[in-house]
């Protein structure tokens, strides 16, 4: 399959190639026009016509598909034709290795084959062959790629890429004088340095003169162009510069023999030659000056007279910057290019300095770990997203492009949500919801964005991600939930109910709390749930999110059969300081039920309800004949301290002075607890107790009293007296 060397395809392959081009034109047009549009119909008709002419020559022809090339018999059909290349790729991507066209093909069959190529449903390989059969396409046989035929090498891994040698073939043939005139155009399209490399590699010095002539002719004596163009002249010299010195000499001498230049032509060429090339030419001609004569001698003189100063030309200046190519050079660096600076700068001594600096500079200080951190997928994704979002702020991209960008960003959102990247999604939401962008995008696109973020799919994925990894980036997760607002509340409440892991439940609760009073109507609806723990959580959310408006419902729960719910309801009433909350508290404190009583004691401390101090004192003073309520009494002492009501001091002093016959240890521990709780009372009020404690034989009580004494200057002042 020597495609490059094939001059003309056989007529049958030509006809098939033409038919395929037409089929691909109609295939491409199907997206632009309706199926019965004349463009499509005419293309199919022409394809059919070519195939009929082909069948006059042979009854069957097979079109092979090799990646992006089509092969007929031994010929690769015009590999550079984009239509054929595209058609080949379409077939290859559909897993088709070959197509056989048979005599007897009808136009209807060809139309059905065309439909098969353009159908939206993407089926491939054997499935596509079956489909063609089902569509009664009998004279076009599809042959699927036999992937099973490839050999699997277990455990191996791919390493390198291949090297193409097409130009090598051209150059070899050029040197042998075997190229046609048309192919010489190909030679002139090879970059001169590349050509020089190939010549250096394959042309011995002893090569016959004709080989030199062939090369020179390609550049200097092109038949189609009268005279010598600047481009050809420059390319020829570029070729010369890149040749081996021996070959260069030979080529120069042959070129001079060939050249037929007038002095005026030389002037013209030199004016258009780049400064860098001029300098190189001087060198080249000087090296080969012995062989120069006539016009070329004049050329050398001209070159020698060219001023080769070192001034650097910038492309242009923009404000304080100078531009080289597409690079902005700032003011400081620009100064280096000023003539005087530049001369110093490029001077040998300065370069030597540089060399020394480089030689003496220490090894790179780049911390590879820092570099890796910047190259973590997460950081890269964030930076890429940042770049994309920046595009929304440019004023020269079209609305169509902006909409495409929106689609891309939403695709990314799908990926981010799967990988719990709330920060990035929040950034996307913030950008896409900016008023300026909304105005630019119009109602339809803005509506589409809103629909995306409020879709059930997105919300569900968000909730799944939250449960999976939400705690990792708590702030962004909360921020995103706030942006999504009402849509996310019910799913979050569902997730809270379903969640088995206590720490995740806690996270979900705190997220719901972060949404504020917006959640209250949704929470209120769930207060009627049968599960006690759900009601408990809803009462918590009511408290945290200012759900005072639902206090009447809460009140009912103070009579609930579940004691935990009753305590939770009381807590809610106390939280909102309802008028009846204290009376509920008092009744709980007097309850026979220990759970209620304990809950009430705790709440009295949390909310510092002074009104219940007498009740607490009463509970504290209650005789504990069996020592069973010792720890309960500890709680009461602690809560009294939290309330800080001075009415408690005298009863506490009484306990401190008490002596016990039984349960002495319990009493000692209670006394210690009393001293620990004294910090909550006004200083003046605890003075007698502290002074009593300083005299105590209990070391712990003594130490606490010392600390209290030190903290309070008033006590300290008197201590010395």
């Amino acid at each position, binding site marked *: 399959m020597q495609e490059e060397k094939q001059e003309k395809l056989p007529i049958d392959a030509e006809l098939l190639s033409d038919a395929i081009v037409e089929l691909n034109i109609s295939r491409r047009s199907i997206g632009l026009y309706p199926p019965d549009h004349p463009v499509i119909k005419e293309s199919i008709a022409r394809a059919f016509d070519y195939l009929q002419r082909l069948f006059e020559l042979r009854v069957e022809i097979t079109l092979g598909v090799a990646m992006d090339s089509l092969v007929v018999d031994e010929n690769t059909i015009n590999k550079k034709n984009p239509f054929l290349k595209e058609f080949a790729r379409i077939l290859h991507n559909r897993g088709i290795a070959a197509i056989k066209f048979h005599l007897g093909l009808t136009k209807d069959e060809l139309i059905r084959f065309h439909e098969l190529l353009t159908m939206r449903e993407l089926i*491939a390989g054997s499935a596509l062959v079956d489909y063609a059969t089902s569509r009664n396409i009998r004279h076009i046989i599809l042959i699927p790629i036999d992937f099973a035929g490839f050999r699997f090498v277990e455990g191996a891994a791919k390493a390198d890429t291949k090297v193409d040698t097409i130009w090598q073939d051209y150059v070899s043939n050029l040197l042998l004088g075997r190229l046609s005139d048309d192919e010489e155009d190909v030679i002139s399209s090879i970059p001169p340095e590349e050509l020089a490399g190939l010549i250096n590699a394959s042309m011995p010095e002893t090569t016959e003169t004709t080989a030199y002539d062939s090369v020179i002719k390609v550049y200097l004596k092109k038949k189609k162009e009268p005279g010598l163009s600047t481009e050809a002249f420059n390319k020829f010299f570029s070729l010369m510069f890149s040749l081996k010195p021996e070959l260069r000499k030979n080529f120069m001498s042959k070129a001079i023999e060939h050249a037929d230049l007038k002095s005026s032509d030389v002037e013209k060429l030199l004016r258009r030659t780049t400064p860098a090339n001029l300098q190189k030419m001087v060198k080249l001609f000087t090296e080969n000056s012995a062989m120069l004569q006539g016009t070329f001698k004049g050329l050398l003189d001209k070159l020698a007279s060219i001023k080769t100063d070192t001034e650097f030309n910038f492309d242009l200046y923009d404000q304080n910057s100078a531009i080289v190519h597409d690079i902005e050079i700032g003011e400081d660096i620009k100064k280096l290019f000023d003539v005087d600076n530049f001369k110093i700068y490029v001077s040998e001594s300065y370069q030597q300095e540089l060399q020394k600096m480089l030689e003496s500079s220490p090894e790179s200080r780049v911390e590879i770990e820092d570099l890796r951190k910047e190259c973590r997928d997460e950081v890269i994704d964030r930076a890429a997203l940042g770049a994309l979002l920046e595009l929304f702020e440019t004023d020269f991209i079209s609305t169509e492009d902006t909409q495409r960008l929106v689609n891309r960003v939403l695709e990314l959102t799908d990926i981010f949500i*799967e990988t719990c990247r709330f920060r990035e999604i929040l950034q996307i939401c913030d950008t896409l919801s900016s008023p300026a962008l909304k105005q630019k995008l119009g109602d339809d696109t803005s509506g589409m964005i809103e629909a995306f973020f409020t879709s059930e799919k997105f919300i569900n994925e968000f909730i799944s991600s939250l449960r999976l990894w939400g705690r990792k980036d708590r702030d962004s997760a909360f921020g995103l939930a706030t942006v999504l607002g009402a849509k996310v509340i019910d799913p979050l409440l569902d997730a809270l109910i379903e969640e088995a892991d206590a720490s995740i439940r806690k996270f979900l609760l705190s997220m719901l709390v972060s949404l504020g009073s917006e959640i209250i109507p949704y929470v209120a609806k769930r207060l009627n749930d049968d599960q006690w723990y759900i009601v408990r959580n809803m009462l918590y959310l009511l408290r945290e999110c200012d759900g005072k408006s639902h206090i009447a419902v809460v009140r009912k729960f103070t009579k609930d059969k579940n004691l935990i719910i009753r305590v939770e309801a009381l807590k809610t009433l106390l939280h909102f300081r309802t008028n009846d909350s204290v009376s509920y508290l008092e009744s709980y404190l007097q309850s026979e039920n220990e759970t209620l009583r304990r809950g009430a004691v705790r709440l009295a401390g949390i909310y510092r309800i002074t009104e219940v101090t007498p009740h607490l004192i009463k509970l504290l003073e209650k005789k504990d004949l069996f020592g069973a309520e010792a720890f309960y009494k500890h709680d009461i002492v602690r809560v009294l301290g939290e309330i800080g009501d001075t009415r408690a001091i005298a009863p506490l002093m009484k306990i401190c002075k008490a002596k016990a016959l039984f349960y002495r240890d319990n009493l000692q521990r209670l006394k210690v607890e009393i001293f620990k709780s004294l910090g909550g009372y006004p200083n003046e009020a605890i003075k007698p107790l502290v002074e009593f404690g300083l005299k105590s034989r209990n070391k712990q009580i003594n130490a606490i009293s010392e600390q209290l004494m030190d903290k309070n200057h008033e006590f300290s002042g008197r201590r010395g007296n």
Partner: protein
Amino acid sequence: MQDKVFEFISYIITALSNCSLYSDSHPAVIYHAEKAVKVMDNLFVEDTISLAIIGSNMIFNDVPFAAKNILVSNLIKRLRRKGIEKIIFTKGVTAEELKGFIAEIAFSKRISGIYPHITSGIIEVNVKTDDGDIRAIMEINIAKVKEAYQEFSGDKKLDMLGLEDVVISLVSSLTREAGIFNIISPVKSYSEYTYAHAANVSVLSIFQAETLGIKGELLHDIGLAGLLHDFGKVFVSKEILEKKSKPSLEEWIEIKKHPVYGVMYLSRLSDVPNLALIAAFEHHMKYDSTGYPETNRRSKKQHIISQIIAISDFFDALRTERPYRQALDVPVIIGLLMEASGKDFNPILVESFLNSLSSVRQL
């Protein structure tokens, strides 16, 4: 069936992404590996199922997918970079086993082959290898870049797999060839500049990254970012870019848009690595946050890979002559890099680059 296969692939690639992002013990990796195994169980018609890559196609059980989505493209890319062309799953694969295999794709240099129900390898095709002239390889690579750039049109996508091949070749050239100066291409006609420059910036960036200890997938992404850093210029008029005289201010304003055009187009392609988007957008930003495009990013830091590419871009661009300006010699460019270090360029990267250059050539 195709839907199931897509589902299977999507679980694998999501597990792989989470694995790269977090760790192989992350709940999302375990979750998606479990899901993949569950879906896989329904895919077994016989005792084995296979996923193979031939060219740019994914083949499942010897039948190609006609359609591709971002996940399939990603998996093809990840496996190609790992040198894997075929994976065979045998009945009995566990989530733990799959998770281990995924972790190896994500992190390890080589696949250990310790999995009883998963084997991977290559598909033998006749690839002609040639250790010949490094310059010839570079020329072929430049031709491929040119082909990819030129073939791209409104409805035709950039041949990313072709460019991936170029990067694989450049990385391998650097491994074989000690001298970076033997690899980077001499500057040719300005119309060819874009492609040669893209390849040179890619090589120089890979060179910088390698000397900083970067390997594997990240190195390939940096190579691709180098190849694509100026892709936005495809959208700038050729008359402006290939003009023989100096550009006007209006033309310069148009040229300055190329980072935006670049990221705009590249972002539409699912298989372009994010690093390439970043570099396309930021390669003319400077270390001190000046430069262009002038956006709200002024206050933000240029990504370190964009800093690497900016150095390569500067280095190669100043080697190129224009009809109205001669090229600068390498020692002069190096001096300029040093002078601009700390303001235009990250001083640590400049130092590292110059140290590496001086180790391969006396400047």
